[in-house]
């Protein structure tokens, strides 16, 4: 029985994919809402592309089912499914002009030449490449080619748009520009979209919801804010953004010990003596107006300072931290205000509300 909530467009249930002895996907279940922009995010080899290709039918899953728009597509070949796809390599047909590339899907529908031309013009206008329609793919830049690929994928108005690392082959400036364009287009056409990426920035800026994956399993599904602010697992906390991990022991309700330092934070129903990992993001550690009466104050020293443009990333150690180190981000103004430099002695506090606890070391 499949639980079908109101707007769920795509239901993936218990999907497992084996390549010989290797299991690339382990019992994945997932719902995608209509018109939603979903990102599969994870390191290479985590199974995100495998999942996308299973949804497309390009590499069939070993077990499990997929429903799209209320129809069981689990075992359909790709040509009988309803999706448009864009690959990292663009995969434009090099011997066809831009216009013909976009038209090729329409030519199979048996519609009028005039209608095809109108639709192609409309699509090329939409991606801003009307003037290039007579050119061949090799005469276009990478970003332009990827926009053509997008127009081609959308030509037949598929119900599902699949993007397989579409921006990874482009350079940084083009990438961020195209990020906005794809997002804008997706909103305008209101097409359910799944994008695979290993770039957290891409996922955070574009997705309505992010599916973080590792080792063939889903670690967390949530909005970008949820993923960043309340990462459910250590893996997510580490993969999305930067996080300090401090191996600690719970000593009593709402108090834990890191090395020799006793600190407080919400510990829930963890028992005293539990080994835990405390996580806090570098930008959440406070250095301004730290008073001894504040919670979780640590006395340290700046060991290393990295200038990153709009802020500085400092590695702190010694003092209370002994041999361990933590990473802290200081805005430029704080750096100036506190006169932070290599070797500076520094008092920082770890605000309890920003601390997250994960069981185990």
């Amino acid at each position, binding site marked *: 029985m499949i639980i079908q909530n109101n707007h769920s467009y795509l239901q993936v*249930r218990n999907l497992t994919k084996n390549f010989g002895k290797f299991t690339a996907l382990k019992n994945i279940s997932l719902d995608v809402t209509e018109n939603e922009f979903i990102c599969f995010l994870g390191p290479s080899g985590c199974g995100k592309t495998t999942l996308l290709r299973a949804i497309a039918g390009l590499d069939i899953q070993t077990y499990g089912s997929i429903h799209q728009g209320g129809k069981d597509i689990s075992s359909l070949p790709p040509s009988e499914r309803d999706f448009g796809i864009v690959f990292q390599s663009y995969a434009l*047909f090099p011997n066809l002009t831009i216009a013909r590339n976009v038209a090729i899907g329409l030519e199979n529908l048996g519609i009028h030449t005039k209608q095809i031309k109108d639709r192609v013009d409309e699509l090329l206008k939409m991606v801003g490449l009307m003037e290039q329609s007579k050119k061949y793919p*090799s005469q276009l830049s990478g970003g332009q080619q990827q926009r053509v690929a997008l127009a081609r994928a959308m030509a037949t108005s598929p119900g599902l748009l699949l993007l397989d690392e579409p921006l990874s082959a482009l350079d940084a400036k083009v990438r961020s520009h195209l990020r906005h364009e794809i997002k804008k287009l997706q909103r305008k056409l209101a097409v359910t979209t799944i994008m695979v990426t290993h770039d957290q920035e891409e996922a955070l800026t574009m997705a309505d919801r992010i599916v973080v994956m590792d080792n063939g399993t889903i670690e967390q599904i949530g909005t970008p804010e949820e993923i960043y602010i309340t990462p459910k697992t250590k893996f997510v906390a580490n993969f999305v953004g930067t996080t300090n991990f401090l191996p600690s022991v719970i000593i009593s309700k709402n108090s834990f010990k890191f090395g020799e330092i006793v600190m407080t934070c919400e510990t829930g129903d963890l028992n005293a003596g539990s080994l835990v990992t405390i996580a806090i993001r570098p930008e959440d550690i406070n250095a301004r107006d730290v008073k001894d009466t504040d919670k979780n104050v640590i006395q340290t020293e700046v060991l290393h300072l990295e200038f990153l443009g709009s802020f500085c990333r400092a590695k702190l150690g010694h003092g209370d931290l002994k041999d361990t180190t933590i990473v802290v981000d200081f805005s430029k103004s704080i750096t100036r205000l506190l006169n932070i430099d290599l070797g500076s002695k520094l008092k920082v506090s770890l605000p309890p509300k920003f601390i997250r606890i994960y069981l185990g070391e």
Partner: protein
Amino acid sequence: MSHILKDTSIVKQKSSRDDVTMRVCMFIIGLFLIIAIVLPLYTMLSKSLENKAGNFIGISNYVEYFSTPSLFQSAYNSFLISFISTIIVLLFAFIYAYALTRTKMPFKWFFKIIAIIPLLTPSMLSGISLVYWFGNQGVAKSFLMGEPIFGSTGIVLGSVYWVFPHALMILITALSITDARLYEAAAALRTSKIKTFFMVTLPSCKFGVISAGFVVFTLIFTDFGVPKVIGGSYNVLATDIYKQVIGQQNFQMGAVVAVVLLTPAIIAFSVDRFVQRKQVALLSSSAVPYEPKNNNTLDYTMLAFCSLVAFLIICMIGMAQYAALVTFWPYNLEFTFENFNFDLVEGGGWGAYFNSIRLSIYTALIGSVMIFFGAYLVEKGRGFKFGRNTFHGVAMTPLAIPGMALGLAYIFFFNHPNNPLNFLYGTMGILVISTITHFYTVSHLTATTALKQMDAEFESVSASLKTPFFRTFQKITIPICLPAIFDISIYLFLNAMTTVSAVIFLYSADTRLASIAVLNMDDQGELAMAAAMAMMIAYTCGGVRLLYAIGSKSIITRTQKWRIK
């Protein structure tokens, strides 16, 4: 409950209409390969285990073969001349290839063209030419200091000549793929030029050398043309099969010799495949191509060497050309076209020449379409891995099968009275089938390489756009692979024009071929006419190649505009 059952059952993808069509097409071409390769070979193997009455007698034929000194001697002879010729060819071809790839020697274009010449002629041509140079009335007979040219000396010289371009092409490829930074690193470490050669150059192309060695060894080992013309009483395996089958009608023993001939060819083939796989991994994608620098001493030494080799090649074909035009060597040296009056002697006449043209055109057209389509189905098909791998495996075998063995296997298989395909025997059809089969592997590999270079996602995109595969094939794949398809058809054409080994057993009175006419004329002592016919083949191949160069260039510039940035 129902969903639990579902979750534990393996999902099998339904086949689309395209998948089914592709599999049916692949099955049809696969069926061709089974009929053209697997079944004939099987029939031949079983024949070698039978007596004349057709009863199974185990390995008695082989025991008899290896205990007959004269037969066993041929195997030894084959090994000996193949080994010696291979060493000589490798040495010459390596230096020649080195000069073309690693030096700034002038006139490289000229030397590249000259080196192709032997590919345009049947292997017998070198034998005929050698007779004129060093035969009983040879111009340069004294060079051999009383040694007769007929025998091992002639076979080695003739073999070296005709396999030279084969070795050269492999070595040029091997020497072309190198990383310039290795040489810069060596220079920065103050390594001497000679030490650099042994520490960088040789190791980086050792797989190419090994591969070239095995390829030419197999070519010589299984060649029939050269030993037939110039071998005299020096027996080798390829001529033995011919004698056993045509001379003594001893088909069983012929089959045994063919199997013996097959063995080293298969070993060489396996080693070559293994080596080639290693070669690929050698070069990283970030390598910088090597750009030779001026070095007067080296460049002019190489020029002298290449000129010598080019001179020898020209002497070889030049003598055949001269012989074809002389009235009656060595008594009447007046020029004449009388030798081209092929209809005057037995052997096939001009009809044989036109048969060869027909065979070559059919082979090139049918072969390139079928082989390319087959490679496409293997490379771009979805699912059905077992079928695709099997197809690929069968497509690779012809390279390991000597033409003589293939021809003989065809006799056994197609001439069998119970075979429904028996009607093919003695027709142009069987010649076309055997020639396509004989040269299947190299064409298949050329097609596969071209297909592999295409974006693997074209098919995925097409499926998502609901484009039927034959449309993608026609609109995308064929235009992109057009240069490779041209290469395949010209390769098939040239080989169909010059081949003798497989077709020698399969031609009939109506389907005599030019290359076989050369042999028959030589047999009858009509050496001048044999030379003339061999030259007709050379003109045709040269002309077709030239036309191809011009034609393909204009077609490619017209249809491949999209390649230009």
